[in-house]
């Protein structure tokens, strides 16, 4: 899929339009001019969510009433017009001027993002890596959203039940039966999550370009919190057993101790945990290798590439890595890159479409004309 044209009004400080070409697109400009906001607009048109805020209403220009984003997307021989209208807490979605539901809107302009914040996937808490895997599964199987919602809901209900146990250990009537009932669903939804994530991690390993940036080989491994406790191949049986064995411990703790909400993803360079033993350069390389693997899996699944958004690329990566990365992507994936370094953009003159971002406006072809 390719984004050919993006129009923004009432959205942050943006105005006018940004045109895209298949391949590389540079957005160059000083800080605070709105480069990242254009990437944000692309991401919102694809996912109806922002990577900068949980509240889309915050993206409406300060003092304004509404924001409107329009994208012209080329997919194979088809042209689609995607629109989002944000007003108050409402969001209205349109495809080819016809109002559609969120479910129908998704999947028409998928994108993956690489930014400073994404480094948390490598360096941050296990929750960051669980979200990375879940986003990956979701990009291939949108129905997974229901499994996640059911699991999280069950987890909350179970935790609420465990909190009804008194300080002195007194249990409300029927407590044991009720705990059984919620555990049944912990097993059901937990097993579905474990299966989806392990399958996804296996597929990532198959497609990742392990030595793209250097000599170390990057691999990933799903780390179940039930590892070493029995046969993971029969997860439903294993988690059922563990819920039984750890029952009293869960009651004493007052929250759920067993389940895939405690799992993690190991990111390894030459078999060693890159978060612990890797240099920051190796960590960035590993993350990029994973992001690229996600693009490849998406391509294998849908026979087309999603967009790749690289925010503030030179703040994150050295020139060698940038060159390796962009060479690798060129000709396959439509990429939108933001940078504050004019020299970097100049290096790609003739190969990339270049827009200079000034006060939220995208001015085209400033450098290419030189």
């Amino acid at each position, binding site marked *: 899929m390719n984004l050919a044209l993006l129009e923004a009004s009432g959205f942050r400080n943006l105005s006018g339009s940004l045109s895209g070409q298949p391949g590389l697109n540079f957005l160059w400009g000083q800080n605070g001019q709105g480069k990242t906001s254009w990437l944000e607009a692309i991401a919102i048109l694809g996912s109806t969510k922002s990577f900068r805020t949980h509240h889309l209403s915050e993206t409406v220009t300060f003092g304004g009433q509404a924001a409107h984003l329009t994208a012209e997307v080329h997919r194979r021989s088809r042209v689609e017009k995607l629109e989002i209208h944000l007003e108050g807490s409402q969001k209205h979605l349109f495809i080819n001027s016809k109002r559609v539901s969120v479910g129908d809107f998704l999947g028409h302009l998928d994108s993956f993002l690489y930014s400073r914040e994404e480094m948390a996937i490598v360096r941050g808490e296990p929750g960051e890596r669980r979200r990375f895997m879940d986003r990956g599964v979701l990009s291939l199987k949108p129905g997974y959203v229901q499994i996640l919602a*059911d699991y999280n*809901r069950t987890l909350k*209900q179970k935790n*609420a039940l465990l909190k009804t146990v008194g300080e002195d250990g007194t249990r409300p*009537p029927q407590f044991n039966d*009720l705990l059984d*009932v919620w555990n049944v*669903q912990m097993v059901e939804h937990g097993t579905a999550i474990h299966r989806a994530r392990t399958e996804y991690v296996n597929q990532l390993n198959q497609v990742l370009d392990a030595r793209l940036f250097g000599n170390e080989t990057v691999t990933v491994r799903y780390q179940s919190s039930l590892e070493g406790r029995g046969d993971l191949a029969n997860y439903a049986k294993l988690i059922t057993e563990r819920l039984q064995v750890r029952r009293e411990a869960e009651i004493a703790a007052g929250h759920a101790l067993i389940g895939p909400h405690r799992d993690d993803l190991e990111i390894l360079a030459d078999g060693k945990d890159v978060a612990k033993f890797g240099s920051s350069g190796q960590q960035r390389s590993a993350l990029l290798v994973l992001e690229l693997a996600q693009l490849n899996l998406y391509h294998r699944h849908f026979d087309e590439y999603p967009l790749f958004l690289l925010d503030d690329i030179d703040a994150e990566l050295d020139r060698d890595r940038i060159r390796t990365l962009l060479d690798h992507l060129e000709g396959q994936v439509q990429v939108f890159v933001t940078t504050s370094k004019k020299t970097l953009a100049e290096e790609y003159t003739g190969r990339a479409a270049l827009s200079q971002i000034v006060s939220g406006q995208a001015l085209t072809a400033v450098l290419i004309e030189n």
Partner: protein
Amino acid sequence: MSEFAEPIAKLIDEFKRLPGIGHKSAQRLAFHILRTTSEDVERLAAALRDVKERITFCSTCHNMTDVDPCRYCTNPNRDQKLLCVVEEAHNLLAVERTGEYRGLYHVLHGALSPMRGIGPDDLKIRSLLERLRTLEVEEIILATNPTTEGEATANYVGRLLKPLGIKVTRIAMGLPVGSDLEYADEVTMHKAMTYRHEI
């Protein structure tokens, strides 16, 4: 913004207490009432009073009714060997609309939810067990909503019923997960009833 005259402000406040009605809608409704004839307003007020005075819950199955016991409980043509358990009275209507089910009902008035402090004693579960002592039921169909709360409730009730030696089935097929039975279309609901499975 200047204040509305007190009677209007009061009416707006009352409307705002209704589910799904925000300030704007409440205002619109209040001004609509203001424009309608006295007869229309009388009829609306009478309907509101009537529903409160005449509609109660059946003391047997806890469905909404204007006679107690309700018509489902007293109708001799209904199959006394089948009993369908639902969360709310409007779910009963969804099952009824399929036109396929001719048995008895039991309305639980909710689903288990520790987060909202709703336990078994807050639902009409005890009265279900009491009913089964006198009824000659051969199959109980658990038609709670396909949400995590509905599943947990079906599972819990199923466990209580198991020792009684009655066949217990759960509707499942074709229902959009995480949804409410109220919105299931008739075809889906019909399939769900037909392909129910034993638990």
